[in-house]
Protein backbone atom coordinates (compact mmCIF):
# COMPACT_ATOMS: atom_id res chain seq x y z
CA UNK A 1 0.00 0.00 0.00
CA UNK A 2 1.37 3.40 -0.88
CA UNK A 3 -0.41 6.54 0.11
CA UNK A 4 0.11 10.08 -1.02
CA UNK A 5 -0.47 13.51 0.36
CA UNK A 6 -2.39 16.23 -1.44
CA UNK A 7 0.91 18.04 -1.91
CA UNK A 8 2.53 15.02 -3.59
CA UNK A 9 -0.44 14.46 -5.87
CA UNK A 10 -0.49 18.11 -6.91
CA UNK A 11 3.26 18.09 -7.58
CA UNK A 12 2.98 15.00 -9.74
CA UNK A 13 0.04 16.43 -11.68
CA UNK A 14 1.75 19.75 -12.16
CA UNK A 15 4.82 18.03 -13.59
CA UNK A 16 2.52 15.97 -15.83
CA UNK A 17 3.92 12.74 -14.40
CA UNK A 18 0.39 11.53 -13.86
CA UNK A 19 -3.15 12.31 -14.90
CA UNK A 20 -6.16 13.17 -12.72
CA UNK A 21 -7.99 10.01 -13.84
CA UNK A 22 -5.14 7.83 -12.58
CA UNK A 23 -5.51 9.25 -9.06
CA UNK A 24 -9.26 8.78 -9.14
CA UNK A 25 -8.84 5.22 -10.41
CA UNK A 26 -6.32 4.47 -7.65
CA UNK A 27 -8.65 5.89 -5.03
CA UNK A 28 -11.60 3.87 -6.34
CA UNK A 29 -9.45 0.73 -6.32
CA UNK A 30 -8.45 1.37 -2.72
CA UNK A 31 -12.10 1.82 -1.79
CA UNK A 32 -13.07 -1.37 -3.61
CA UNK A 33 -10.30 -3.28 -1.88
CA UNK A 34 -10.62 -1.97 1.67
CA UNK A 35 -14.04 -0.49 2.18
CA UNK A 36 -15.86 -3.81 2.48
CA UNK A 37 -13.81 -4.18 5.70
CA UNK A 38 -13.62 -0.55 6.85
CA UNK A 39 -17.09 0.74 5.92
CA UNK A 40 -16.04 4.37 5.53
CA UNK A 41 -18.32 5.26 2.61
CA UNK A 42 -22.10 5.47 2.49
CA UNK A 43 -22.09 6.47 -1.18
CA UNK A 44 -19.33 6.03 -3.75
CA UNK A 45 -20.00 8.20 -6.79
CA UNK A 46 -17.46 6.37 -8.94
CA UNK A 47 -18.80 6.90 -12.43
CA UNK A 48 -19.31 10.60 -12.09
CA UNK A 49 -15.92 10.95 -10.38
CA UNK A 50 -14.17 9.14 -13.23
CA UNK A 51 -16.02 11.18 -15.80
CA UNK A 52 -14.98 14.37 -14.08
CA UNK A 53 -11.35 13.24 -13.69
CA UNK A 54 -11.12 12.21 -17.35
CA UNK A 55 -12.40 15.60 -18.39
CA UNK A 56 -9.61 17.15 -16.29
CA UNK A 57 -7.07 14.89 -18.07
CA UNK A 58 -7.56 17.02 -21.15
CA UNK A 59 -7.31 20.33 -19.35
CA UNK A 60 -4.37 22.45 -18.28
CA UNK A 61 -3.45 22.30 -14.58
CA UNK A 62 -5.58 25.01 -13.03
CA UNK A 63 -7.19 25.19 -9.60
CA UNK A 64 -5.82 24.81 -6.10
CA UNK A 65 -6.82 21.12 -5.81
CA UNK A 66 -6.79 20.23 -9.50
CA UNK A 67 -7.45 16.52 -9.96
CA UNK A 68 -7.22 15.62 -6.27
CA UNK A 69 -9.82 13.05 -5.16
CA UNK A 70 -11.68 13.69 -1.91
CA UNK A 71 -14.71 12.68 0.14
CA UNK A 72 -17.34 14.59 2.11
CA UNK A 73 -19.05 13.62 5.33
CA UNK A 74 -22.61 12.70 4.49
CA UNK A 75 -24.11 15.63 6.39
CA UNK A 76 -22.72 18.04 3.77
CA UNK A 77 -25.29 18.63 1.04
CA UNK A 78 -24.31 17.72 -2.50
CA UNK A 79 -26.56 18.58 -5.42
CA UNK A 80 -28.02 15.51 -7.10
CA UNK A 81 -26.07 13.20 -4.80
CA UNK A 82 -27.80 11.49 -1.90
CA UNK A 83 -27.11 13.11 1.48
CA UNK A 84 -28.44 11.14 4.44
CA UNK A 85 -26.77 12.38 7.65
CA UNK A 86 -26.71 8.59 8.29
CA UNK A 87 -30.37 8.84 9.28
CA UNK A 88 -33.38 6.85 8.13
CA UNK A 89 -35.31 10.09 8.01
CA UNK A 90 -33.09 11.31 5.15
CA UNK A 91 -32.40 7.86 3.68
CA UNK A 92 -33.32 8.86 0.13
CA UNK A 93 -32.85 12.62 0.33
CA UNK A 94 -31.22 14.10 -2.78
CA UNK A 95 -30.41 17.76 -2.13
CA UNK A 96 -31.32 20.24 -4.85
CA UNK A 97 -28.31 22.39 -3.91
CA UNK A 98 -24.64 22.20 -2.95
CA UNK A 99 -23.20 23.21 0.41
CA UNK A 100 -20.84 26.17 0.03
CA UNK A 101 -17.82 23.97 0.88
CA UNK A 102 -18.86 21.47 -1.83
CA UNK A 103 -19.16 24.31 -4.30
CA UNK A 104 -15.79 25.76 -3.31
CA UNK A 105 -14.00 22.41 -3.59
CA UNK A 106 -15.61 21.80 -6.97
CA UNK A 107 -14.32 25.21 -8.05
CA UNK A 108 -10.75 24.16 -7.13
CA UNK A 109 -11.14 21.27 -9.63
CA UNK A 110 -10.98 18.59 -6.95
CA UNK A 111 -12.76 15.31 -7.70
CA UNK A 112 -15.54 14.26 -5.30
CA UNK A 113 -15.50 10.47 -4.85
CA UNK A 114 -18.33 10.01 -2.40
CA UNK A 115 -19.95 10.54 0.96
CA UNK A 116 -18.69 9.14 4.24
CA UNK A 117 -20.36 7.53 7.23
CA UNK A 118 -21.11 9.33 10.49
CA UNK A 119 -23.07 9.06 13.68
CA UNK A 120 -26.67 9.92 12.81
CA UNK A 121 -26.90 13.73 12.49
CA UNK A 122 -23.29 13.84 13.77
CA UNK A 123 -24.45 12.85 17.25
CA UNK A 124 -21.88 10.48 18.67
CA UNK A 125 -18.23 9.75 19.28
CA UNK A 126 -17.82 6.37 17.60
CA UNK A 127 -19.85 6.37 14.34
CA UNK A 128 -21.81 3.48 15.86
CA UNK A 129 -24.95 5.63 15.79
CA UNK A 130 -25.11 5.51 11.98
CA UNK A 131 -28.45 4.07 10.90
CA UNK A 132 -26.75 2.21 8.06
CA UNK A 133 -23.39 0.65 8.90
CA UNK A 134 -20.44 0.40 11.23
CA UNK A 135 -17.14 1.99 10.33
CA UNK A 136 -14.04 0.23 11.60
CA UNK A 137 -10.75 1.71 12.69
CA UNK A 138 -8.11 0.93 10.03
CA UNK A 139 -5.52 0.42 12.80
CA UNK A 140 -7.65 -2.24 14.49
CA UNK A 141 -10.94 -3.24 12.89
CA UNK A 142 -12.37 -4.37 16.24
CA UNK A 143 -12.22 -0.77 17.40
CA UNK A 144 -14.19 2.36 16.61
CA UNK A 145 -12.80 5.01 14.27
CA UNK A 146 -14.14 7.69 16.61
CA UNK A 147 -16.91 10.00 15.65
CA UNK A 148 -18.93 11.54 14.55
CA UNK A 149 -16.88 11.98 11.34
CA UNK A 150 -15.57 8.40 11.59
CA UNK A 151 -16.04 7.65 7.90
CA UNK A 152 -13.96 10.63 6.75
CA UNK A 153 -11.19 9.84 9.27
CA UNK A 154 -11.07 6.15 8.32
CA UNK A 155 -11.14 6.92 4.57
CA UNK A 156 -8.06 9.14 4.89
CA UNK A 157 -6.28 6.80 7.31
CA UNK A 158 -6.86 3.83 5.01
CA UNK A 159 -5.41 5.73 2.06
CA UNK A 160 -8.68 5.74 0.09
CA UNK A 161 -8.62 9.51 -0.33
CA UNK A 162 -5.87 12.05 0.45
CA UNK A 163 -8.37 14.34 2.17
CA UNK A 164 -11.94 14.50 3.35
CA UNK A 165 -14.14 17.02 5.07
CA UNK A 166 -15.94 16.47 8.34
CA UNK A 167 -17.86 18.60 10.80
CA UNK A 168 -16.95 19.26 14.42
CA UNK A 169 -19.56 20.20 17.04
CA UNK A 170 -17.85 18.81 20.15
CA UNK A 171 -14.79 17.11 18.69
CA UNK A 172 -16.22 15.25 15.71
CA UNK A 173 -13.20 16.01 13.52
CA UNK A 174 -10.36 16.00 16.07
CA UNK A 175 -11.37 12.88 18.02
CA UNK A 176 -11.68 10.55 15.00
CA UNK A 177 -8.50 12.11 13.55
CA UNK A 178 -6.74 11.19 16.79
CA UNK A 179 -8.17 7.65 16.83
CA UNK A 180 -7.28 7.04 13.18
CA UNK A 181 -3.80 8.60 13.12
CA UNK A 182 -4.52 11.48 10.72
CA UNK A 183 -4.54 15.26 10.95
CA UNK A 184 -7.89 16.89 11.78
CA UNK A 185 -8.63 20.60 11.96
CA UNK A 186 -11.59 22.45 13.42
CA UNK A 187 -11.35 26.05 12.23
CA UNK A 188 -12.48 29.10 14.22
CA UNK A 189 -16.27 29.27 14.39
CA UNK A 190 -17.30 31.41 11.42
CA UNK A 191 -14.17 30.74 9.33
CA UNK A 192 -15.91 28.24 7.05
CA UNK A 193 -19.48 28.60 5.79
CA UNK A 194 -22.04 26.21 7.25
CA UNK A 195 -24.44 26.75 4.37
CA UNK A 196 -25.57 23.29 3.32
CA UNK A 197 -24.21 21.55 6.42
CA UNK A 198 -27.11 19.64 7.97
CA UNK A 199 -27.47 21.49 11.26
CA UNK A 200 -26.87 19.77 14.61
CA UNK A 201 -25.98 22.56 17.08
CA UNK A 202 -25.66 25.74 15.08
CA UNK A 203 -23.62 27.78 17.56
CA UNK A 204 -20.98 25.01 17.70
CA UNK A 205 -20.90 23.28 14.29
CA UNK A 206 -17.89 23.96 12.07
CA UNK A 207 -16.62 22.20 8.94
CA UNK A 208 -12.95 21.25 8.57
CA UNK A 209 -10.48 18.90 6.86
CA UNK A 210 -8.94 15.49 7.52
CA UNK A 211 -5.55 15.08 5.88
CA UNK A 212 -2.33 13.09 6.09
CA UNK A 213 -0.21 16.15 6.93
CA UNK A 214 -0.60 19.56 8.52
CA UNK A 215 0.51 21.17 5.29
CA UNK A 216 -2.35 19.44 3.46
CA UNK A 217 -4.76 20.74 6.10
CA UNK A 218 -3.54 24.25 5.26
CA UNK A 219 -4.18 23.64 1.53
CA UNK A 220 -7.72 22.46 2.15
CA UNK A 221 -8.54 25.12 4.73
CA UNK A 222 -7.42 27.74 2.22
CA UNK A 223 -9.84 26.35 -0.33
CA UNK A 224 -12.91 26.28 1.92
CA UNK A 225 -12.43 29.40 4.08
CA UNK A 226 -14.02 32.78 3.78
CA UNK A 227 -17.16 34.78 4.19
CA UNK A 228 -20.35 33.50 2.61
CA UNK A 229 -23.38 35.73 2.47
CA UNK A 230 -25.62 32.65 2.58
CA UNK A 231 -24.44 31.91 6.14
CA UNK A 232 -25.02 34.89 8.42
CA UNK A 233 -22.70 33.34 11.03
CA UNK A 234 -19.77 33.12 8.64
CA UNK A 235 -17.43 35.99 9.43
CA UNK A 236 -16.30 38.74 7.07
CA UNK A 237 -12.74 38.05 8.18
CA UNK A 238 -9.63 38.20 6.01
CA UNK A 239 -8.27 34.80 5.04
CA UNK A 240 -4.46 34.76 5.34
CA UNK A 241 -2.18 32.58 3.23
CA UNK A 242 -2.10 29.51 5.50
CA UNK A 243 0.47 27.63 3.41
CA UNK A 244 3.02 30.42 3.22
CA UNK A 245 2.98 30.84 7.00
CA UNK A 246 3.89 27.21 7.74
CA UNK A 247 7.66 27.46 7.72
CA UNK A 248 8.19 30.13 10.38
CA UNK A 249 9.13 27.70 13.14
CA UNK A 250 8.24 28.05 16.81
CA UNK A 251 11.22 29.96 18.18
CA UNK A 252 10.00 32.31 20.89
CA UNK A 253 6.42 31.03 20.76
CA UNK A 254 4.83 30.26 24.10
CA UNK A 255 3.17 26.88 24.42
CA UNK A 256 0.59 26.65 27.18
CA UNK A 257 0.49 23.34 28.97
CA UNK A 258 -2.86 22.83 30.71
CA UNK A 259 -2.48 21.84 34.36
CA UNK A 260 -4.69 19.43 36.27
CA UNK A 261 -5.71 17.14 33.44
CA UNK A 262 -5.02 14.05 35.58
CA UNK A 263 -8.48 14.13 37.10
CA UNK A 264 -9.95 13.31 33.68
CA UNK A 265 -8.44 9.85 33.52
CA UNK A 266 -5.78 10.41 30.88
CA UNK A 267 -4.21 7.13 29.82
CA UNK A 268 -0.52 6.89 30.79
CA UNK A 269 0.63 6.24 27.22
CA UNK A 270 -1.37 9.22 25.95
CA UNK A 271 0.15 11.39 28.64
CA UNK A 272 3.66 10.21 27.78
CA UNK A 273 3.21 10.79 24.04
CA UNK A 274 1.84 14.30 24.56
CA UNK A 275 4.64 15.06 27.02
CA UNK A 276 7.18 13.96 24.45
CA UNK A 277 5.53 16.17 21.82
CA UNK A 278 5.77 19.17 24.14
CA UNK A 279 9.47 18.37 24.62
CA UNK A 280 9.91 18.26 20.85
CA UNK A 281 8.36 21.72 20.52
CA UNK A 282 10.57 22.98 23.33
CA UNK A 283 13.63 21.58 21.59
CA UNK A 284 12.52 23.42 18.47
CA UNK A 285 12.69 26.69 20.38
CA UNK A 286 9.27 27.12 21.95
CA UNK A 287 8.88 28.27 25.50
CA UNK A 288 6.58 26.17 27.69
CA UNK A 289 4.33 27.84 30.26
CA UNK A 290 1.63 26.36 32.45
CA UNK A 291 -1.95 27.52 32.00
CA UNK A 292 -5.03 26.75 34.02
CA UNK A 293 -8.55 26.28 32.67
CA UNK A 294 -10.59 26.18 35.89
CA UNK A 295 -13.92 25.52 34.17
CA UNK A 296 -12.68 22.74 31.90
CA UNK A 297 -14.22 20.17 34.26
CA UNK A 298 -17.66 21.65 33.56
CA UNK A 299 -17.30 21.52 29.78
CA UNK A 300 -19.03 18.17 29.22
CA UNK A 301 -22.04 19.11 31.38
CA UNK A 302 -22.28 22.48 29.65
CA UNK A 303 -22.03 20.97 26.20
CA UNK A 304 -24.54 18.21 26.84
CA UNK A 305 -27.16 20.81 27.70
CA UNK A 306 -26.39 23.37 24.99
CA UNK A 307 -25.84 21.00 22.05
CA UNK A 308 -29.01 18.92 22.65
CA UNK A 309 -31.03 22.11 23.24
CA UNK A 310 -29.95 23.45 19.86
CA UNK A 311 -30.41 20.04 18.27
CA UNK A 312 -33.95 19.65 19.56
CA UNK A 313 -34.78 22.95 17.91
CA UNK A 314 -32.88 22.25 14.68
CA UNK A 315 -34.37 18.78 14.25
CA UNK A 316 -37.94 20.08 14.60
CA UNK A 317 -37.80 20.58 10.83
CA UNK A 318 -37.97 16.82 10.20
CA UNK A 319 -41.72 16.53 10.13
CA UNK A 320 -42.35 14.58 6.94
CA UNK A 321 -43.74 17.57 5.08
CA UNK A 322 -41.23 19.19 2.73
CA UNK A 323 -38.52 16.54 2.34
CA UNK A 324 -37.27 13.30 3.77
CA UNK A 325 -39.23 10.34 4.99
CA UNK A 326 -42.92 10.49 5.83
CA UNK A 327 -44.80 7.86 7.82
CA UNK A 328 -48.55 7.35 7.58
CA UNK A 329 -50.88 8.97 10.09
CA UNK A 330 -54.59 9.70 10.41
CA UNK A 331 -54.01 13.30 11.43
CA UNK A 332 -51.23 15.77 10.82
CA UNK A 333 -50.02 15.44 14.42
CA UNK A 334 -49.98 11.66 14.19
CA UNK A 335 -48.08 11.85 10.90
CA UNK A 336 -45.44 14.09 12.55
CA UNK A 337 -45.03 11.75 15.49
CA UNK A 338 -44.88 8.59 13.42
CA UNK A 339 -42.43 10.12 10.96
CA UNK A 340 -40.07 11.27 13.71
CA UNK A 341 -40.37 8.13 15.80
CA UNK A 342 -39.64 5.83 12.86
CA UNK A 343 -37.07 8.12 11.26
CA UNK A 344 -34.78 8.94 14.19
CA UNK A 345 -32.48 6.48 15.92
CA UNK A 346 -32.10 6.12 19.68
CA UNK A 347 -29.24 8.57 20.25
CA UNK A 348 -30.99 11.28 18.24
CA UNK A 349 -34.17 10.74 20.24
CA UNK A 350 -32.14 10.84 23.45
CA UNK A 351 -30.61 14.19 22.53
CA UNK A 352 -33.91 15.66 21.40
CA UNK A 353 -35.32 14.59 24.76
CA UNK A 354 -32.45 16.11 26.78
CA UNK A 355 -32.68 19.32 24.78
CA UNK A 356 -36.45 19.59 25.01
CA UNK A 357 -36.24 18.96 28.75
CA UNK A 358 -33.50 21.58 29.25
CA UNK A 359 -35.52 24.15 27.32
CA UNK A 360 -38.91 23.34 28.78
CA UNK A 361 -40.83 25.67 31.04
CA UNK A 362 -39.53 25.56 34.60
CA UNK A 363 -36.14 24.10 33.64
CA UNK A 364 -34.84 26.68 31.19
CA UNK A 365 -33.14 28.87 33.80
CA UNK A 366 -31.77 25.97 35.82
CA UNK A 367 -30.26 24.15 32.84
CA UNK A 368 -30.04 25.92 29.51
CA UNK A 369 -29.39 29.44 30.76
CA UNK A 370 -26.95 28.19 33.39
CA UNK A 371 -25.05 26.25 30.75
CA UNK A 372 -24.81 29.40 28.65
CA UNK A 373 -23.37 31.25 31.65
CA UNK A 374 -20.74 28.54 32.17
CA UNK A 375 -19.99 28.84 28.47
CA UNK A 376 -19.07 32.46 29.19
CA UNK A 377 -16.74 31.29 31.99
CA UNK A 378 -15.06 28.77 29.68
CA UNK A 379 -14.51 31.45 27.09
CA UNK A 380 -13.04 33.74 29.76
CA UNK A 381 -10.69 30.95 30.90
CA UNK A 382 -9.27 30.85 27.38
CA UNK A 383 -8.98 34.64 27.19
CA UNK A 384 -6.90 34.52 30.37
CA UNK A 385 -4.82 31.58 29.18
CA UNK A 386 -4.02 33.23 25.85
CA UNK A 387 -2.57 36.21 27.68
CA UNK A 388 0.18 33.85 28.80
CA UNK A 389 0.68 31.75 25.67
CA UNK A 390 0.21 31.59 21.89
CA UNK A 391 -0.91 27.99 21.60
CA UNK A 392 -2.44 25.60 24.14
CA UNK A 393 -1.62 21.88 24.11
CA UNK A 394 -3.70 19.02 25.45
CA UNK A 395 -4.28 15.44 24.45
CA UNK A 396 -7.07 15.24 21.85
CA UNK A 397 -8.68 12.41 23.80
CA UNK A 398 -8.02 10.82 27.21
CA UNK A 399 -7.58 7.36 25.64
CA UNK A 400 -6.87 5.68 22.33
CA UNK A 401 -9.66 4.15 20.21
CA UNK A 402 -12.00 1.97 22.27
CA UNK A 403 -13.51 -1.36 21.19
CA UNK A 404 -16.69 -1.42 19.10
CA UNK A 405 -19.71 -1.86 21.33
CA UNK A 406 -17.94 -0.86 24.55
CA UNK A 407 -19.85 2.36 25.20
CA UNK A 408 -23.01 2.02 23.10
CA UNK A 409 -25.22 1.30 26.09
CA UNK A 410 -23.67 3.94 28.29
CA UNK A 411 -24.30 7.37 26.78
CA UNK A 412 -22.71 9.32 29.64
CA UNK A 413 -19.43 7.36 29.33
CA UNK A 414 -19.50 8.06 25.60
CA UNK A 415 -20.00 11.78 26.25
CA UNK A 416 -17.15 11.99 28.77
CA UNK A 417 -14.76 10.94 26.03
CA UNK A 418 -15.21 14.46 24.55
CA UNK A 419 -13.81 16.34 27.57
CA UNK A 420 -10.75 17.79 25.80
CA UNK A 421 -12.36 18.57 22.47
CA UNK A 422 -15.60 20.26 23.64
CA UNK A 423 -14.00 23.43 25.10
CA UNK A 424 -12.80 24.67 21.68
CA UNK A 425 -16.36 24.42 20.34
CA UNK A 426 -17.91 26.19 23.31
CA UNK A 427 -15.39 29.02 22.95
CA UNK A 428 -15.35 28.97 19.12
CA UNK A 429 -11.56 28.49 18.98
CA UNK A 430 -9.58 26.81 16.19
CA UNK A 431 -8.05 23.47 17.18
CA UNK A 432 -5.91 20.86 15.47
CA UNK A 433 -5.19 17.21 16.16
CA UNK A 434 -1.82 15.87 14.95
CA UNK A 435 -0.64 12.26 15.43
CA UNK A 436 2.01 12.19 18.14
CA UNK A 437 2.62 8.52 18.67
CA UNK A 438 1.33 4.98 18.74
CA UNK A 439 0.37 3.00 21.83
CA UNK A 440 1.83 -0.39 22.75
CA UNK A 441 -1.28 -1.87 21.10
CA UNK A 442 -0.47 -0.07 17.86
CA UNK A 443 -3.19 2.55 18.24
CA UNK A 444 -2.64 6.19 17.21
CA UNK A 445 -2.41 8.98 19.79
CA UNK A 446 -3.31 12.59 18.97
CA UNK A 447 -1.78 15.85 20.13
CA UNK A 448 -4.31 18.67 20.28
CA UNK A 449 -3.28 22.28 19.72
CA UNK A 450 -5.60 25.24 20.26
CA UNK A 451 -4.92 28.80 19.16
CA UNK A 452 -6.47 32.20 19.59
CA UNK A 453 -9.61 33.07 17.62
CA UNK A 454 -8.78 33.42 13.87
CA UNK A 455 -5.18 32.36 14.38
CA UNK A 456 -5.22 29.14 12.37
CA UNK A 457 -1.95 30.37 10.84
CA UNK A 458 -0.07 29.97 14.15
CA UNK A 459 -1.92 26.74 14.89
CA UNK A 460 -0.86 25.23 11.57
CA UNK A 461 2.68 26.55 11.90
CA UNK A 462 3.13 24.90 15.30
CA UNK A 463 1.51 21.70 14.03
CA UNK A 464 3.72 21.65 10.95
CA UNK A 465 6.87 22.37 12.95
CA UNK A 466 6.01 19.53 15.32
CA UNK A 467 5.25 17.15 12.46
CA UNK A 468 8.62 17.90 10.83
CA UNK A 469 10.50 17.53 14.12
CA UNK A 470 8.71 14.57 15.69
CA UNK A 471 11.14 12.12 14.12
CA UNK A 472 8.76 9.41 12.99
CA UNK A 473 6.17 8.78 10.29
CA UNK A 474 2.84 7.28 11.26
CA UNK A 475 2.95 3.56 10.45
CA UNK A 476 0.40 2.55 7.82
CA UNK A 477 -2.69 0.88 9.22
CA UNK A 478 -3.03 -2.91 9.20
CA UNK A 479 -6.68 -2.87 8.06
CA UNK A 480 -7.12 -5.92 10.26
CA UNK A 481 -7.41 -6.95 13.88
Amino acid sequence: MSVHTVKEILASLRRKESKPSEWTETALRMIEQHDPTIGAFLTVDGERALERARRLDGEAFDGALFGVPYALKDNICTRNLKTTAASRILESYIPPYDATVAQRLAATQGVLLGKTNLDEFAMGSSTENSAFQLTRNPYDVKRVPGGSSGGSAAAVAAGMVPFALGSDTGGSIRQPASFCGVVGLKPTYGRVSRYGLIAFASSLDQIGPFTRSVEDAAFVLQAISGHDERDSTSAPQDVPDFVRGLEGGVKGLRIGLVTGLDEHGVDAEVQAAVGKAVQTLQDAGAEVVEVHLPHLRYAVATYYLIAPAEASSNLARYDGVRYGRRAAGQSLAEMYENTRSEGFGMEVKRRIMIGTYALSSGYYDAYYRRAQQVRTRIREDFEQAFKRCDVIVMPTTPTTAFPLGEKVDNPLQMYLNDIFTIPANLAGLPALSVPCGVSSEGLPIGLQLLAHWWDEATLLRVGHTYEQARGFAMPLPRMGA
Partner: protein
Amino acid sequence: MKISEETVRHVAALARLSLSDEEVAHLAPQLSEIIGYAEQLQQLNLDDVAPTSHSLARTNVFREDEPWPGLARDVALACAPDSTDEYVRVPAVLEG
Protein backbone atom coordinates in the same frame (compact mmCIF):
# COMPACT_ATOMS: atom_id res chain seq x y z
CA MET B 1 -32.33 14.43 39.61
CA LYS B 2 -34.73 11.57 39.02
CA ILE B 3 -36.69 11.85 35.81
CA SER B 4 -39.89 9.85 35.99
CA GLU B 5 -41.45 7.90 33.16
CA GLU B 6 -44.31 10.37 33.31
CA THR B 7 -41.90 13.26 32.67
CA VAL B 8 -40.32 11.31 29.80
CA ARG B 9 -43.77 10.93 28.21
CA HIS B 10 -44.52 14.61 28.69
CA VAL B 11 -41.21 15.71 27.13
CA ALA B 12 -41.68 13.24 24.27
CA ALA B 13 -45.07 14.78 23.53
CA LEU B 14 -43.47 18.25 23.47
CA ALA B 15 -40.85 16.96 21.02
CA ARG B 16 -43.45 15.20 18.83
CA LEU B 17 -41.97 11.78 19.49
CA SER B 18 -44.13 8.78 20.27
CA LEU B 19 -42.09 6.43 22.41
CA SER B 20 -42.91 2.80 23.13
CA ASP B 21 -43.22 1.72 26.78
CA GLU B 22 -39.91 -0.03 26.33
CA GLU B 23 -38.22 3.16 25.10
CA VAL B 24 -39.70 5.14 27.98
CA ALA B 25 -38.41 2.60 30.48
CA HIS B 26 -34.99 2.70 28.80
CA LEU B 27 -34.77 6.50 28.61
CA ALA B 28 -35.94 7.45 32.10
CA PRO B 29 -32.82 6.20 33.94
CA GLN B 30 -30.48 7.38 31.15
CA LEU B 31 -31.92 10.91 31.15
CA SER B 32 -31.79 10.90 34.96
CA GLU B 33 -28.10 10.04 34.81
CA ILE B 34 -27.26 12.63 32.13
CA ILE B 35 -29.29 15.45 33.71
CA GLY B 36 -27.92 14.35 37.08
CA TYR B 37 -24.39 14.78 35.74
CA ALA B 38 -25.32 18.25 34.49
CA GLU B 39 -26.48 19.15 38.02
CA GLN B 40 -22.84 19.94 38.85
CA LEU B 41 -23.33 23.29 37.14
CA GLN B 42 -25.53 24.22 40.09
CA GLN B 43 -22.39 24.34 42.29
CA LEU B 44 -21.05 27.39 40.50
CA ASN B 45 -21.78 30.92 41.56
CA LEU B 46 -22.88 32.55 38.33
CA ASP B 47 -24.42 35.77 39.64
CA ASP B 48 -23.90 38.55 37.11
CA VAL B 49 -22.41 36.23 34.48
CA ALA B 50 -23.91 37.02 31.10
CA PRO B 51 -24.98 33.98 29.08
CA THR B 52 -23.15 33.19 25.83
CA SER B 53 -25.44 31.99 23.08
CA HIS B 54 -22.84 32.24 20.38
CA SER B 55 -19.05 32.40 20.32
CA LEU B 56 -19.18 34.99 17.56
CA ALA B 57 -21.41 37.79 18.70
CA ARG B 58 -22.60 39.11 15.38
CA THR B 59 -25.89 40.93 15.35
CA ASN B 60 -28.06 42.39 12.62
CA VAL B 61 -26.38 40.72 9.71
CA PHE B 62 -28.06 42.30 6.72
CA ARG B 63 -27.54 42.10 3.02
CA GLU B 64 -28.61 44.46 0.29
CA ASP B 65 -32.30 44.10 -0.45
CA GLU B 66 -31.73 42.68 -3.89
CA PRO B 67 -33.76 39.70 -5.06
CA TRP B 68 -31.86 36.61 -6.17
CA PRO B 69 -33.25 33.39 -7.51
CA GLY B 70 -34.23 30.84 -4.87
CA LEU B 71 -35.20 27.22 -5.40
CA ALA B 72 -37.65 26.81 -8.25
CA ARG B 73 -41.03 25.53 -7.08
CA ASP B 74 -40.88 22.30 -9.04
CA VAL B 75 -37.39 21.55 -7.69
CA ALA B 76 -38.51 22.18 -4.12
CA LEU B 77 -41.69 20.14 -4.53
CA ALA B 78 -39.72 17.24 -6.01
CA CYS B 79 -38.21 16.75 -2.51
CA ALA B 80 -41.60 16.52 -0.81
CA PRO B 81 -43.02 13.08 0.04
CA ASP B 82 -46.45 14.13 -1.24
CA SER B 83 -47.34 17.10 -3.40
CA THR B 84 -49.67 18.41 -6.05
CA ASP B 85 -48.48 20.61 -8.89
CA GLU B 86 -48.36 23.63 -6.65
CA TYR B 87 -48.48 22.50 -3.04
CA VAL B 88 -47.06 20.13 -0.48
CA ARG B 89 -49.89 17.83 0.62
CA VAL B 90 -50.41 16.73 4.25
CA PRO B 91 -53.12 14.83 6.15
CA ALA B 92 -56.16 16.91 7.03
CA VAL B 93 -55.47 19.45 9.75
CA LEU B 94 -59.10 20.09 10.63
CA GLU B 95 -61.76 17.42 11.01
CA GLY B 96 -64.81 17.40 8.70
